[in-house]
């Protein structure tokens, strides 16, 4: 009798404990169209529904039928991601991604609905290569709780299934309207900080600049940098770079301009001002010229008197 009571109690307790952890972070995989034809381009959104959890990091792989689909573009604008550790498809075959959201993420609030809803991590524009059946999903997704201990939480992913038919022939422009228009983005990237530091374990202790801009349009495409001994920059002479950037002038006596450029060419420029301005009287060449000038003047005066 007592054994039976204990078994029931343990069963109840196990049920309660397991039901407490039923929430899993879910990645929603949403396409911009339902019918797929050879030659189509369409955009797939990967959105995170935290489902009551507070997470601050996630990684995984974009898994898709590569015999049917190819990746045209990755869009990271207007995203929940705070800092990218690895953006997906930096190369054609690199389908992994990893990022953090400092201070945590529970979902996105909006005036159009109550509570939290899922937010976009990134989207991928695919093109359809041939007929057949395929899929797009996130594999090996791992989300981490915002608890300071990197506790992993259960993560699931939806799957987008698609059946590709032969190309439609009645529309000339049907490739274009399914993809959300990034070309309407005229907003520059948000203002961002450029911070300087140095560390013995990075760049052999050289001074470097760290920066990270955000863009609520099409997303950041790249950064450019311009170093100059005098204030101001020209339209040419910029070099494509990435963060962190090793400062060329390690004396920190130059102006460094960092430009964030989004996918549509909109720009935001930040200035790092020199912290070690070389003053004119420190130049040996200046004092040398003064000295020579005085000698010349003295010689001239002497000759005139003679």
């Amino acid at each position: 009798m007592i054994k039976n009571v204990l078994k029931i109690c343990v069963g109840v307790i196990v049920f309660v404990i397991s039901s407490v952890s039923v929430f899993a972070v879910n990645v929603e995989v949403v396409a911009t169209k339902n019918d797929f034809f050879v030659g189509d381009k369409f955009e797939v959104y990967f959105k995170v529904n935290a489902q009551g959890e507070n997470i601050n990091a996630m990684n995984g792989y974009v898994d898709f039928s590569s015999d049917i689909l190819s990746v045209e573009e990755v869009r990271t604008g207007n995203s929940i991601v705070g800092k990218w550790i690895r953006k997906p498809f930096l190369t054609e075959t690199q389908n992994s991604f990893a990022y953090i959201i400092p201070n945590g993420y529970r979902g996105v609030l909006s005036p159009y609905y109550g509570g939290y809803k899922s937010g976009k991590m990134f989207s991928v524009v695919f093109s359809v290569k041939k007929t057949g059946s395929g899929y797009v999903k996130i594999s090996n997704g791992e989300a981490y709780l915002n608890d300071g201990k990197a506790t992993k939480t259960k993560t699931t992913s939806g799957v987008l299934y698609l059946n590709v038919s032969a190309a439609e022939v009645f529309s000339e422009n049907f490739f274009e309207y399914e993809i959300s228009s990034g070309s309407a983005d005229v907003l520059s990237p948000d203002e961002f900080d450029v911070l300087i530091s140095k560390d013995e374990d990075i760049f052999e202790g050289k001074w470097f600049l760290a920066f990270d801009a955000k863009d609520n349009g099409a997303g950041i495409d790249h950064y450019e940098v311009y170093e100059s001994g005098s204030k101001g920059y020209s339209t040419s002479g910029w070099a494509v770079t990435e963060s962190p950037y090793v400062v060329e002038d390690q004396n920190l006596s130059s102006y460094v301009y960092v430009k964030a450029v989004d996918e549509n060419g909109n720009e935001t420029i930040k200035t790092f001002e020199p912290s070690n301005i070389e003053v004119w009287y420190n130049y040996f060449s200046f004092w040398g010229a003064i000295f020579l000038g005085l000698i010349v003047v003295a010689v001239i005066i002497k000759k005139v008197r003679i």
Partner: protein
Amino acid sequence: MCAVLFAFFSVPVFADVILDAVVSVSATVEETGGGGGGSITPYVKFSGYAYPGATVYIESDSKNIGILNANSDGLFSYNIYNITSGIHDFSIYAKDIKGNFSNSVSFLVDVPVESITNIFNVFIPPTVVVDKLQYGVGEKIKISGYAMPGVPIYVEIKSSGGVFKTFSKKIFSGGDGYFEYIPTSDLFGYGLFSVSVKSLYGGFSSSFGTSFDFQIMKKISLSATSSRCGQKVDLNKDCKVNIIDFFIEFRWYKKTLTEVQKKRFDFNNDGRVDISDFSIMAFYWTRE
């Protein structure tokens, strides 16, 4: 017996039934089309609860966009213009009149185009400090801070390491928002502890604020210093965790580490630098 076993696995801390405050968002969006009609000037309005006289800081995507003062009732309200539409990661935190900072309330909002967006019910957790880092037997531990005036404060003291224990106490803040709780160390035994507090207002509860660690020892060490710096994730030791630390850590992401490098960059001691270490860094991320 079932009830006893069930109670053992439950962790009821307080008897009150309280709901966690959730930041709320509404918006007035400009109507498009039609002739005439004035257009609205878009802005985002933030409002909520802090402490009397607190300085409230508002950040968007880790950048400060507003600094304001809460009134004598602890309420604050602020309009910010020139916020672009789209998803923004807002963080709001406060500094009390003694200069102690709260935890931040962070949330993502999809700001509509051309709208007056109202973000309200932002409930900033109380501040809390402990007067020392180490206590001996029988010493009084002064736990104090600021919250909304005249509200219930829930103090939670947890032991860390060894046997897990939680001690709870309900007190009330004064008319100026100040509260204090002064137990003796005998109540808790020896070891490491952390204290955090949350408060109630209008039927809702704030989240627990920043925790403050202290130690109860048989013998006091003279080397303890009171400092909020020294987080392992603060790699350049500037008392901030930001993109500089992020990129220093990134240098060693999935790289082979020496034993010396593991001590510095492997925050969870699993022998490697991977996303779990960045998750720990993200938890301690601080504002500029």
